[in-house]
């Protein structure tokens, strides 16, 4: 006949074995979850880096677009200035040619004096040219000053 104490001892033994097996299983599960967590962390870091890179790309793109718009506006302004000047110049030249057409005659005999009115027009043009030269010089000086100021910073 089996004694009650023996049954109790066996029960304890079985319980101990079960708890040990459970502990090992829990240990394995913990290790597995630890590994999974490390992989998840790495994935999260990678995703964060990719997000930062994408954000930087978007910022760079936005800045490039702004620069593009600014450059387009400046170029349009310059083109408009040149077009306006060309139109003025053509108009002036046409008017002058029309005005002086009837004066174009051959003077084969004595050396004729230059046309006084045309000389005046030429003088005005010379003044305009030197004015344009001065303007160009001023713009260059300003650009150089600006570049020097930026370089000094």
């Amino acid at each position: 006949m089996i004694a009650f104490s023996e049954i109790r001892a066996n029960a304890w033994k079985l319980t101990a074995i079960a708890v040990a097996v459970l502990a090992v299983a829990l240990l394995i599960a913990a290790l597995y979850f630890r590994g999974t967590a490390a992989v998840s962390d790495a994935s999260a870091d990678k995703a964060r880096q990719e997000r930062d890179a994408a954000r930087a790309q978007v910022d760079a793109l936005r800045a490039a677009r702004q620069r593009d718009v600014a450059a387009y506006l400046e170029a349009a302004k310059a083109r408009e200035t040149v077009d306006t000047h060309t139109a003025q110049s053509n108009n002036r030249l046409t008017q002058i040619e029309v005005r002086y057409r009837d004066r174009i005659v051959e003077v084969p005999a004595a050396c004729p004096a230059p046309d006084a009115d045309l000389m005046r027009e030429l003088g005005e043009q010379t003044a305009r040219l030197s004015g344009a030269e001065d303007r160009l010089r001023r713009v260059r000086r300003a650009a150089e000053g600006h570049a020097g100021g930026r370089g000094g910073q």
Partner: protein
Amino acid sequence: MPADVAVSERSVVIWQLHAYAWKDYAESVLEQRIATAVCMEGNRRSGAIR
């Protein structure tokens, strides 16, 4: 660019107009350079170029 005038041309006004055309050409080139310089300066100021 202005068209050439025949060397045998005897009319003073033609030569004067030729001189005018060259000056006008020089003026237009200068104006273009000014417009370009102003454009570059504007781009530099806006940060589009360095």
